[in-house]
């Protein structure tokens, strides 16, 4: 193995190889790529801070013409987190929602307007659980844990 060289770049500016694309707006991110006939995706997010999921009813949304598919936590039994704090995360909530905004269902539709309308027709029923809005109250004796780790 090569002997590690002393670092010569500390304190110097090493511009990124893809910097010119990024500062000129030419860099293509996923959201910038358009394929003919591509579908629009939208995510239904929990309006509750903490709750036990009783039902995610997507039947009315699925009836909407132009909606091609909807997946929920029931379709996602694998955890996907790469970061240690997220190892137990599922892509869509299962059993519980743990914060307001947690993804609950994902819709694929012919266009964005249809996908948005589908979100309005999804019905999430939860049994609400205690939620805490300060670190102090979350740490207080008797506070229930939000994470399943």
């Amino acid at each position, binding site marked *: 193995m090569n002997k590690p060289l002393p670092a010569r770049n500390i304190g110097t500016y*090493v*511009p*990124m190889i893809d910097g010119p*694309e990024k*500062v*000129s*707006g030419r*860099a293509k991110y996923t*959201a*910038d790529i358009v394929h003919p006939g591509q579908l629009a995706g939208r995510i239904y997010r929990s309006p509750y801070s903490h709750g036990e999921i009783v039902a995610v009813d997507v039947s009315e949304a699925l009836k909407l013409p132009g909606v091609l598919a909807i997946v929920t936590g029931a379709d996602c039994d694998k955890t996907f987190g790469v970061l240690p704090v997220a190892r137990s995360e599922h892509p869509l909530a299962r059993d519980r929602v743990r914060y307001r905004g947690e993804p609950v269902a994902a819709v694929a539709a012919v266009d964005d307007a249809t996908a948005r309308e589908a979100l309005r027709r999804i019905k999430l029923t939860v049994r609400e659980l205690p939620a805490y809005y300060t670190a102090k109250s979350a740490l207080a004796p008797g506070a229930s844990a939000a994470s399943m780790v």
Partner: protein
Amino acid sequence: MARLLEFTLNGRDRADAVADNILLLDYLREKAGLTGTKTGCDGGECGACTVLIDDRPVLSCLTLAATVQGRRIDTIESLGTGGQLSAVQRGFHEKLGSQCGYCTPGFIMASAGLLRKNPNPSEDEIKEALGSNICRCTGYVKIIEAVQYAAALNAQGVAP
């Protein structure tokens, strides 16, 4: 309803039938094909969608396209000449004010708007001008340095 919108986009006159309810951001990205302007939060919180309207930085996600009748819109694609980066673009590139780059077009347009109005801003004026922009990667030290460097380049004749 749709209306005929006439305005100047990146230095070119443009006339387009535009629905009343389309956002300037979506118009630029989807109708004009200018994807340099980014959708970050979609709700006025992040600044990724910043463009210049008559040289003033504006959040295009909070602007209806129909309101830019007769105005002059500049997006990130308008900066730089003949393949050369503008002063602000060089600042963000050379002083490492950009990492993932997603926030960068918004920061660059907000900075370009600042330098067009005030070619020699103080650090506080830079902070204030970039107060509507969020970056999750770089922190703001390098970004401020990038704008200061851009101001120095601008003083040497490189357009912001």
